[in-house]
Structures are given as structure tokens and as C-alpha cells.
């Protein structure tokens, strides 16, 4: 049996590496998408979740003298850049998507708001925002910054400079945020490591799932070409051949995983902070799971055309719900519950634990165990339901 399995693995790897263009595509697609997402999300993480470039906020007012204390504060803000324009111009620029937010400050706003502060009977001046609905994240951040400045001016105007709590020196307490990643514990870098490591792990898993679909399609093509009939005429159990296919697909998946993660380390310098043995275990069980998933796909499909579309959809749903694109923690609670039924979730969470959460080998075992259960399930269905003949 072992000789047959080894012969199948050798033949499959020879076929895989013979088509160099296909090998390159199988590596470049996940690597390219991961690099793109790492650039986008990595730069946001590096700035503490805020956009890496400052948000332009348009300010329109008729009383420029009154605006001076507000501008003084707003110009100190980390996330926004203030640009003074007319109200008409503000509307036009937001409408054209050139700025996410504009604020229209009415005449006598600071005095009116100061009078109304603590007096519910006084008339309240109206501050008008013009916002681009497609840029809600930037709008939220900018509004927060602007409102902090406005309240500081109002309080200072009403009670004096000592009560302006938006000024660092007036704050009665200090704050410190500690992110619980291994990087932080070791006093090293930032959230960027976690984001990039997650992106590369997730997209590498997606890459090997698509590789598994390709393997399944190849197997179905072999059936169509009569190759499997020749194999069933040989004095071997056909299941040995399928087991060989699982192992060869595992080796191919490990190769893709290794290259993609290595690419991430070399290009973005993210660090593996957990157990290396644990990471190796996660890579192996993830590769084994996707390889048996490939067999499962080929066993359920009758024709290549029929199976390809359906399995692509299944992989996209699995990677999306499994947290390969975005961390599962961002999902609503009910989606998080569903995602635990998806093997990708266990693969990505296990990889996260070993790459940036700095966990020990023992932490990888539950993830690896669940992935092995999925492997056994997929393989059992694949080995028993596989159709050898086109008849």
C-alpha cells in the first residue's frame, strides 16, 4: 500500500511542478492578494485603527474671528486637516467625493453654545454637518475630533482655561492601552504584526482551498479520460490511489502555505511569536484538511463544469465566514457561532494563535484536533462515495 501511495505522490508532484506557470499562479494569487490587503489593513493598524492619511474637513463660517479658537484646537488634532471654504463650495466638494465631511459653523456659535451650556432654557445654536455617506468611518473619526475641540472651546469660554479637559495638562487622569498580543507583551512593535500575520494566514488558507478544487477537477478530468478505469484494472485497491492523492495534495498545499507565509515574512517583516512546532502542526493539519476537502468535492460532483462553480462558491463562503478575510471577531454573534462549524475558522484561529498571539504548542492542539476531525469526515465521504466510472 505504501509503495502505491508513494508512487501516486511522486507522479502528482511531477505533474504539478511540470506546469511551472500553474505553480507560479498558485503561489502568486494568494501572495498578491495578501500583499494588497496587508498594505491596506496594515497601514490602518499601524495608526491605531485610524486612517494613515489625515482626513480633510471643510469648514465654512461667516464669522472668521470666532472660528480662531476652534481652528487652534482642530489644527492640533491627529486625524484631521482643516480647510476653510464657503458653504456652497463645501457642499459641492463633499458631493463630488473630494472631502468626506464639512462643518458649517453659524454666526455667534461659540457664544450661543457657551450660554446654552448648563442652561436648558437658553436657545441652542445649530451646527450643521455635511457628510459623504460612503465614508462613514472617516466621518465618524473626524466628527469625534471636531466635537472634542468644540467642547473644549465652549467649556473654556464658560468656565475658564483650567476647565478645558480636552487639553492634556487639564486632564485629571492619564490613560494607557495595552494590546494583548505577544508583540506587546514583549514590548516590541504594534498591531501591524497581528493584522499582517492574520491576512497572510487567511489568504494562504484560501489559496490552498482553491488548490484543492483544482486537484478535484484534475481527478474528475482523469476519470473522463479513462485513466481511473486503467487504475481500477490494476491489482491495487483504488482507495490507496485516492489516499495517495490526499497526501500529494497535502504536500502541494504545504508548499503553497510555506511560500505565502515566507513571502509575508520577507516583504512585511511580520514576526512569528508563537510556537514554531505549533505553527508547523497547524500548517500540516490545515493542508491535510484542504486536501481531503478536494477529494470530497471530486466525490460529490458528476461533471467538472457542474462541480467547479458550486465548489468555488462553497470555498468563498467558507473563507468569508471562517474569518480568512476579516477576523471572525468582527462578525455578529450568530455568524461567529456558525463560523465554528467551518474548518477555515479553526485553521485561521490556530494560525493566528501561533503567528501573532504568541501561544505555546498546547494551544495549537485543539485547533489541530478539530481540523483532523474535518479531515476524517471529508476523507470518509470522499473515499466511500467516489465514482470511478463515468457510467
Amino acid at each position, binding site marked *: 500500500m505504501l509503495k502505491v501511495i508513494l508512487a501516486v505522490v511522486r*507522479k502528482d508532484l511531477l505533474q504539478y511542478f*511540470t506546469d511551472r506557470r500553474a505553480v507560479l499562479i498558485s503561489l502568486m494569487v494568494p501572495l498578491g492578494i495578501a500583499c494588497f490587503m496587508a498594505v491596506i489593513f496594515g497601514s490602518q493598524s499601524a495608526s491605531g485603527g485610524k486612517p494613515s492619511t489625515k482626513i480633510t474637513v471643510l469648514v465654512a463660517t461667516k464669522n472668521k474671528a470666532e472660528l480662531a479658537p476652534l481652528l487652534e484646537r482642530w489644527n492640533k488634532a491627529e486625524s484631521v486637516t482643516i480647510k476653510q471654504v464657503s458653504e456652497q463650495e463645501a457642499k459641492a466638494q463633499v458631493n463630488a467625493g473630494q472631502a468626506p465631511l464639512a462643518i458649517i459653523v453659524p454666526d455667534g456659535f461659540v457664544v450661543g453654545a457657551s450660554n446654552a451650556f448648563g442652561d436648558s432654557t437658553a436657545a441652542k445654536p445649530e451646527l450643521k454637518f455635511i457628510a459623504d455617506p460612503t465614508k462613514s468611518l472617516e466621518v465618524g473619526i473626524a466628527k469625534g475630533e471636531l466635537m472634542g475641540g468644540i467642547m473644549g472651546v465652549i467649556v473654556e469660554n464658560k468656565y475658564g482655561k483650567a476647565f478645558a479637559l480636552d487639553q492634556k495638562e487639564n486632564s485629571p487622569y492619564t490613560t494607557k492601552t495595552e494590546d494583548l498580543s505577544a508583540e506587546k507583551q514583549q514590548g516590541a512593535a504594534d498591531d501591524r504584526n497581528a493584522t499582517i500575520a492574520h491576512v497572510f494566514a487567511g489568504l494562504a488558507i484560501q489559496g490552498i482551498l482553491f488548490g484543492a478544487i483544482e486537484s478535484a477537477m484534475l481527478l474528475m478530468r482523469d476519470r473522463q479520460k479513462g*485513466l481511473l478505469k486503467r487504475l481500477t*484494472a*490494476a491489482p491495487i485497491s483504488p482507495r490507496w490511489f485516492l489516499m495517495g492523492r490526499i497526501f500529494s495534495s497535502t504536500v502541494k498545499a504545504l508548499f503553497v502555505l510555506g511560500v505565502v507565509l515566507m513571502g509575508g515574512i520577507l516583504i512585511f517583516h511580520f514576526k512569528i511569536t508563537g510556537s514554531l512546532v505549533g505553527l508547523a502542526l497547524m500548517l500540516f493539519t490545515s493542508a491535510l484538511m484542504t486536501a481531503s476537502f478536494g477529494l470530497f468535492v471530486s466525490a460529490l460532483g458528476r461533471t467538472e463544469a457542474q462541480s467547479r462553480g458550486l465548489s468555488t462558491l462553497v470555498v468563498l463562503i467558507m473563507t468569508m465566514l471562517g474569518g480568512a478575510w476579516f477576523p471572525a471577531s468582527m462578525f455578529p454573534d450568530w455568524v461567529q457561532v456558525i463560523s465554528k462549524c467551518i474548518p477555515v475558522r479553526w485553521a485561521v484561529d490556530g494560525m493566528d494563535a501561533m503567528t501573532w498571539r504568541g501561544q505555546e504548542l498546547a494551544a495549537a492542539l485543539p485547533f489541530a484536533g478539530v481540523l483532523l476531525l474535518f479531515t476524517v469526515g471529508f476523507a470518509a465521504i470522499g473515499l466511500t462515495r467516489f465514482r470511478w*466510472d463515468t457510467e
Partner: protein
Amino acid sequence: MLSLRSVSKKFGARTAVSDVSFEVQCGEFFGLLGPNGAGKTTTLSMIVGTLLADSGSINLEGAQMNPSAFGEKSKIGFVPQETALYEDLSANANLQFFGSLYGLQSLPERCATVLRQVGLEDRAADRVENFSGGMKRRLNIAVALLHHPKLLVLDEPTVGVDPQSRNQIFDTLEQLNRDGMTIIYTSHYMEEVERLCSRIAIMDGGKLIACGTKADISKLLPDLNLLALTFAEPPPADLLALLLLKYPDLKAEETVVTVQVANLEVDVAWITSQLAGKANLKAIRSDESSLEDVFLHLTGKGLRD
């Protein structure tokens, strides 16, 4: 060597093979002839153990044949109808892979030998996708020869092959048979089976309709000879009417008239006497009945209908 007894196979409601029985002797070149859909491939699949018969038995050298009879499977070389090869690999890599499934010792030498047998020794390192159709077919056969099978089973091995490659394949198979290998050859080309096979089974609609040597099978036809009369110009209508009265199955095409006669000598004498002075007869030819005629007689349709 091989015997089939009342073998049947159904796929759902469709009966692919029904109650087929025949025997193949050691060293024989046995032909399985029939049109597409006759049940030849299904019968072969049961013989080589890729399909399990629903009923009946298949015995190879006294042992029951079935999908898990690995000992018996290793005695058979199977050439499927499709060119079942990995086209992105070289000829040698294909042979190495399939050979390793049979646990062969000294595989490289064996690969070189079979490549030589099919005339592809100088293409060992070339990828199969660059081969012509005929070369692929020859390599398809080489794969089946790797493990020195006692019985070689070929399922329409010349489909889509040019005449030169076809003759090369025939020469190889005839040599193998001369060397003592038992061969079962299926085809819907009666000329191939007539050339190669010493005994023939004819199948149609999943049933065996005739089996024996070509002489045995020809006896199934009524004792009639086919007479082809060639005229210098199309014969006159009154003459054709006269011939038609005596030979109701007469066929006339331009200058050639074909009739079936019971007694060659008597009928030729009668025909020439009737034609004297009425038509310019250029030639008379008596044709031997073919397997096609037998098939037509037994089923009412042609082999390639």
C-alpha cells in the same frame, strides 16, 4: 483460460450485457465484434475486474474474477478505449507510474523493453501531449504490456488512428500473439477482427448473437453466393425485370447489378444465356460473404449503423 458463464450487467433499468457466455483458449487471438452500444466495453470491464457482474461468473485460469481479485488482475493487461495516459508527463514517466502500481522489479529496463516493442524507444523522454494519435495509442498498449500479462485485453485500440499506425499496432499484436500471449480484441471494424482474430464473438444489444471461427460464423448465412455483374452500360429495363423475377433481392447501381444465387454454376449459365445479345456484360464476380453480411443477416442492420 477465460470463461464467461451467463454474465449479465444492468445500469439502472438499462441492460448493458445479458446472459453472455463464451470461452477464450490459451494463446488464442479472440475478437469481440459489435456496433457501438453492443455491450463490448461492459463485457471487457467485467473481464478485467473493473466492474462486478450482476449475475453469472467469469473465471480466469479457474479463479473467479471480480474487482478485488488482485492476483487475477495482475495476469491481465488492459488497454482502455481512451488513451488513458497522463499527457503532461513523458512516455517514460507514464510507464514508471503505471509499472509501480504492479510492484515491478527492474522497472527502468522493463519500460525500455515495452517502448521498443511498440516502436517508441526514441520518444521515451518526450511528453505525451506532443505525440500523434497513433503514438499515443501505441503507448497506451505499452502500458498494458509492462507487467508481462498472460491475457491482453484491448478495447477498440485503433479508434482515430492513421492507417500506418494501425498497421504498426496490428504487427505488434500479431507478434505478441505469436509469442504466446492470449489476446481479446474488441472492435466495430469487421476488417480488423477478420484480419487478426482466429475466433470471433459477435454482440448486439448486450447479447451474444454468434461465436466461433469465421468459417463457423459464415455458416449462419443461408447457403447463397453473391454475384456481381458489371455491364458496359446500364442494362435495359426489360432485362432487369427478367432478372428481378428470378432474383427478388437484385440490386442495380448504374452498370453493376448484384444478385444472390443458390447454385453458382447453374445460375451463371442461366444469366449468361439470358444476356446474350441483349446487353454487353463486361465481368462477373462472385463475392465471399463477410462478417458484415452475417451481422446484417442476424440483426437486420449494419455494424456501423
